[in-house]
């Protein structure tokens, strides 16, 4: 599974992109976030307030309840500010 971080989530995790292989219990986005937070203080900081974190799977917006599976491209980022 590929995980991407953008904007201040990238800055806080210190990572733009990582390949991960979470255990089978990690079934949805919320579960994935809990698992990622255990990877270190940067990740913990990045996911501190989920009210300002958005998720996309395979480049489509998804809610925290959305299932994740092997081969997915999962991206985390703040609410967008383009335009």
């Amino acid at each position, binding site marked *: 599974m590929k995980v*991407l971080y*953008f*904007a*201040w989530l990238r*800055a806080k995790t210190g990572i733009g992109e990582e390949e991960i292989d979470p255990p089978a219990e990690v079934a949805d986005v919320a579960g994935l976030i809990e698992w990622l937070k255990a990877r270190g203080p940067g990740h913990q900081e990045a996911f501190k307030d989920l009210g300002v974190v958005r998720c*996309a799977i395979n*480049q*489509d*917006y998804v809610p925290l309840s959305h299932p994740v599976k092997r081969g997915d491209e999962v*991206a985390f*980022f*703040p*609410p*967008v*500010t*383009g*335009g």
Partner: protein
Amino acid sequence: MIRVQREDFDVGAEIARLSGSGKVGAVASFVGLVRDHAGDGETVRAMTLEHYPGMTERQLEAIEAEARQRWPLEDCLIIHRHGRLEPGERIVLVITASAHREAAFQSCQFLMDWLKTKAPFWKLEDTPEGGKWVDAKAEDDSLAERWQQRREDGCLPTDQ
């Protein structure tokens, strides 16, 4: 058509390109530019636009398709830049061309409102106190939501 690019664009040439056919009576456009002050009054020396390559194009294409479905457009263009931009530089261009002005105006505004809340771009402001990620504005959410409501009400623009 959508374009995501680092380079600047030629507003006049793009508007002329969409105006060519004798079917177009109305061309609405919007240009977004880097301001030299942030919303809180802080000086902005420059701005860096980060985006999510792949998803950006996908979202902009979806937004364009939605506009074309809602309004009778002859043509439609979205250009969004990324990378480092200084005050006064152009960030985004949206052009809509239609037989009628109400369709052109509404779709142009719709495209900007949706782009502002859906296209994965993030602004990092270079201020005297260092780099500052711009916060999303609640106002932008409500401006985008009005189009959702309108659709649910079946209350589409008058010239549909």
